[in-house]
């Protein structure tokens, strides 16, 4: 082909088109050839370089740092290419250099070619990446430390609160029992309020510790065979007074025969309690809450559906985080709530190797689901 023939004359042009710096040396390490890029970058002229020792072609510092003469010797000796290394120039540029033996008709290489590529941009990027990684790692460590400190603080605070709470609740009970003298009806009524509020405080302290315990994974759940449908019925009965205050109806539908699962009865009760209390709380009066329990292949699935306020897509992502009590006007923050109920429910379900999630539309209601595996 004519095209191929005419191309042969361009070989030199092709070499000059390569963006690398190229030098060819013989066994005595004298320069036989340097490409245009070399002259452009070094500012040297052909007569200063060709026929001269390699050490005249490169700055002394580079010769020492790279030990290039020894590497070239090795390439000639073994015939194996030197696959490359990075070199930092004093001006801040980075080069990657490689040495290949050039074999002519003889088996032994008479000359070797040195390629040098500017990898400054790539190296900078690599360094930035490393820097960012280290920064990220440090930030992560810091966050973890903060979280541990926070947990420690909550744990200490909760424990320190126990003794004063015991003192106050003991005296309250003594007043109620009239061990400290007879009370008027009005005093009795107020003491009952104090008592109820102290019980609420105690529950909050227990919730804080529960949330921490379940998070630490150290918590042990005490498993035995439990009947989920019975637990659900019990919790619904316990909450009927609270639901009645808002004239809600709560229904329980059990689909088929639900097998017993291995679980911690007290903890599973807590999951039902927390989910149902939320449903009651965040549904306008005369709402309906439907609890459904279903036997699915290897697990039992529970759903708790309400026709309440609903949860925005944004809040759905964070709703199981501890201390998240809703925002953006969807769930208004109520006093006495610390945003721990769902975090605790999640901790318990996950400690049972189950799953918990929510489906909801703002203004239409929410359905919380959780599963508990049937077997250990």
């Amino acid at each position, binding site marked *: 082909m004519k095209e191929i023939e005419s191309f042969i004359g361009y070989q030199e042009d092709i070499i000059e088109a390569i963006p690398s710096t190229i030098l060819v040396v013989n066994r005595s390490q004298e320069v036989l050839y340097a490409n245009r890029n070399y002259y452009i970058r070094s500012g040297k002229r052909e007569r200063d370089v060709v026929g001269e020792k390699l050490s005249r072609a490169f700055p002394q510092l580079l010769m020492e740092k790279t030990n290039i003469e020894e590497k070239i010797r090795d390439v000639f000796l073994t015939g194996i290419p030197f696959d490359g290394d990075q070199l930092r120039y004093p001006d801040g540029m980075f080069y990657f250099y490689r040495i290949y033996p050039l074999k002519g008709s003889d088996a032994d290489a008479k000359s070797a070619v040195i390629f040098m590529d500017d990898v400054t941009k790539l190296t900078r990027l690599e360094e930035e990446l490393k820097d960012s990684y280290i920064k990220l790692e440090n930030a992560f460590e810091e966050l973890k430390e903060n979280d541990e400190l926070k947990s420690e603080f909550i744990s200490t605070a909760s*424990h*320190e609160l*126990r*003794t*004063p*709470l*015991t*003192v106050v*609740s*003991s*005296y309250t*009970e*003594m007043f109620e*029992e009239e*061990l*400290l003298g007879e009370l008027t009806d009005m005093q009795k009524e107020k003491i009952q309020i104090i008592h109820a509020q102290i019980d609420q405080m*105690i529950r909050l302290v227990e919730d804080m*510790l529960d949330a921490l315990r379940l998070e630490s994974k*150290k*918590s*042990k759940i005490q498993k035995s065979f439990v009947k989920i449908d019975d637990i659900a019925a019990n919790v619904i009965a316990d909450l009927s007074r609270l639901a009645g205050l808002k004239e809600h109806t709560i229904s329980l539908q059990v689909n088929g025969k639900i097998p017993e699962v291995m679980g911690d009865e007290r903890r599973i009760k807590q999951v039902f309690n927390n989910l149902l209390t939320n449903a009651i709380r965040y549904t306008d009066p005369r709402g309906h809450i439907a609890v459904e329990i279903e036997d699915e292949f290897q697990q039992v699935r529970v759903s708790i559906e309400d026709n309440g306020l609903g949860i925005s897509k944004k809040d759905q992502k964070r709703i199981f985080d501890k201390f998240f009590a809703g925002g953006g006007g969807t769930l208004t923050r109520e006093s006495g709530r610390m945003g721990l109920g769902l975090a605790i429910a999640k901790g318990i379900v996950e400690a049972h190797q189950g799953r918990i999630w929510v489906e909801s539309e703002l203004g239409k209601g929410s359905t919380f689901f959780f599963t508990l595996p049937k077997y250990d």
Partner: protein
Amino acid sequence: MVDDAPYMIKALRDLLEAYGHEVYEASNGKEAMVRYAEVRPDVVLMDLLMPTLDGVSATKRIMEQDSKANIIVITAVGKSGLEKDCLAAGAKKFIVKPFKTKELLNSIESLART
């Protein structure tokens, strides 16, 4: 009653005296050992975290003094494993604060009868 929190002692003294019990106090484990030898009470209510000598060690020492001692541990620390340690040391009951006064009274009365 062994506790280093003065109001805790006062509240329980008021409660127990109202039910006709006699109450003796100690504010740490070491004092508790001395008082136990003097008074030989029917029941000891033992806090756990106290200066000088902690509740678990004090329980052990009192049990060495009197193998029939009735010790109820009352603690603010609800750590798992702690209950086992206390029972192993010889305590008869382990009660976590805050408790219902009825719960404590029942425990004391059932032990005092033995």
